[in-house]
């Protein structure tokens, strides 16, 4: 959400382009669907305290592992907690994990990548070698290792996922910076004698923003899966606080007796990830400069 907000701020500066991007985005049904799905989950997560559902940790011993009913539309879990309520509050954990960890990755990765692409030479060599070392370990394995090292909590899981995603953004920002550096307007800005700082903040960063926005959106989907995986393994959100991943972990023991306990969190993860992927793909198509 941080990246979306920043985009709104910069795209305001590009009136005609923005409307063209918006027109293209709107005519893309899949992207629009993705946007609606994401918006739905975001609204639900934000409104969680106001919705007329029981608290996520409230147990009802009279209704343990009950199927969907009027009182509990999504059923109850093994200690009688309302699955719908836990789903809604779990959305907060998932979305927050997605957005915060990608925020960390962007804030760390983009400056390093821009620096790497701008300065080149030994700075680039040093940053690139570290990036490659990080990329050598699979994303999820790295996240699990880091989360285990930091200790189990949602905050640490977000940090672990964020660090694991940093190399993606270093690479992207580095490549984009190198390509923007060859643009004529950067050369003419250098001919005007601008300082490095002005060149980077006013000429490079705004022009590498669209691909980073797209990558950020797609990475949120990956980060949500990673958070669910970590929580499933007990390395993320700690009980009794709800998370889709930890709900699935418990639900796997009752698959035959109470399939709804697994069905809804599983479907929610699927939908949110689908939503972010459709949204990211749509943004990529809409921001594609080749069609302008």
């Amino acid at each position, binding site marked *: 959400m941080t990246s979306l907000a920043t985009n709104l701020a*910069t795209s305001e*500066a*590009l*009136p*005609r*382009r923005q409307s063209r991007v918006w027109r293209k985005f709107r005519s893309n049904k899949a992207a629009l669907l993705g946007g609606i799905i994401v918006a739905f989950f975001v609204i639900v997560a934000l409104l969680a305290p106001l919705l007329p559902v029981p608290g996520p940790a409230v147990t009802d011993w009279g209704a343990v592992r009950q199927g969907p009913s009027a009182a509990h539309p999504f059923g109850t879990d093994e200690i009688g907690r309302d699955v719908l309520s836990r789903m809604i509050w779990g959305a907060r954990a998932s979305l927050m994990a997605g957005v915060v960890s990608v925020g960390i990755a962007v804030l760390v990765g983009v400056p390093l990548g821009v620096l790497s692409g701008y300065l080149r030479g030994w700075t680039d060599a040093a940053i690139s070698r570290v990036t490659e070392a990080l990329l050598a370990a699979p994303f999820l394995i790295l996240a699990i290792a880091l989360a285990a090292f930091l200790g189990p909590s949602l905050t640490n899981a977000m940090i672990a996922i964020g660090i694991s995603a940093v190399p993606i953004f270093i690479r992207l920002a580095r490549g984009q910076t190198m390509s923007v550096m060859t*643009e*004529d*307007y950067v*050369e*003419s*800005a*250098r*001919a*005007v*004698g*601008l*300082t490095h700082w*002005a060149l980077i903040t*006013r*000429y490079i960063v*705004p*022009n590498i923003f669209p691909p980073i926005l797209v990558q950020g959106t797609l990475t949120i989907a990956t980060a949500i899966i990673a958070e669910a995986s970590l929580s499933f393994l007990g390395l993320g959100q700690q009980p009794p606080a709800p998370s889709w991943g930890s709900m699935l972990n418990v639900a796997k023991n009752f698959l035959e007796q109470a399939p709804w306990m697994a069905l809804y969190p599983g479907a929610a993860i699927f939908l949110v990830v689908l939503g972010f992927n459709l949204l990211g793909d749509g943004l990529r198509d809409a921001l594609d400069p080749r069609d302008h």
Partner: protein
Amino acid sequence: MTATALLELEGLTIALKGVDQPIVDNVGFTLARGETLCIVGESGCGKSLTSLALMGLLQTPPLTVTRGMARFAGEDLLAMPAARLRQIRGGRMAMIFQEPMTSLNPGLRIGEQIAESVRRHKGVGQAEARARALEMLRRVRIPAPEKRLDEYPHQLSGGMRQRAMIAMALANDPELLIADEPTTALDVTIQAQILKLMKSLQQETGAAMVLITHDLGVVAEMADKVAVMYGGRIIETGTAEQVFTDPQHPYTIGLMSSMPSLGARSGRLVTVPGTVPQPTAMPPGCRFSTRCPFATGACATVPPLTDLGAGHRVACAHAPLTATEAPAMRSTGT
């Protein structure tokens, strides 16, 4: 070497990594205030590299200035620290680029881009810099300058963008203006307007100008002095009149006769045979010798740039041409 020289370039030599021979070799010229020097030549002859080297904008690596001195108002541009160069660049020395369509930052308003450079070099505040930007847009005769100030590059036509680029270049009253094919990307009617504008602004400000072009029509229009480059070397230089009325180098003669003109022409338009050799395959000695129909054994050594009198200098073993040679060369057009 007059006392009033603003820019004295001597022995500029640029090497490209992996290429033995320098790709710009021993290029030099002097330029006085208010004077216009046109550097002419085909693509790849080193004319753009020469101007980029003056601005300190060469891509290093792979390019490096291996030798040379460029005295600009007493300071050597090629030897000064980067920070000092950034102060001069855009301030006392400015550049206009070839591609107005891509040389403006698409994310910044026109006014901001001009104001940015003014603030950087004049140390003035936002409001003053903006006022200066507006004044410059007026001076380059952009229609509705108040409106253009807050527009983005994509909202302007090519001609208007080049005017904006000129406004940006002239905003800090530079003493030296380097223009790298400023009209190549524009259509013909706009070209004439832009050249006229540049000329009149130059007269107003008294700036010296290095104009890089491959268009001899532009040269005839603008130049006080001409330097013809081939294969990274200046092969002929002099006043515009000397070079146009009495070209001495076979390549210059070829260029002049390959220029289409209005009116009836007898026979085909003359062309210079062959193409410029790759930098890796430059012949030793005179670099034009592989394409020159008059090449002899003497052309295997590098011909010095010899003064034929009154500052008209030519690097050719045959120069000065005798009364019989000249018409022969001109009719074959090399």
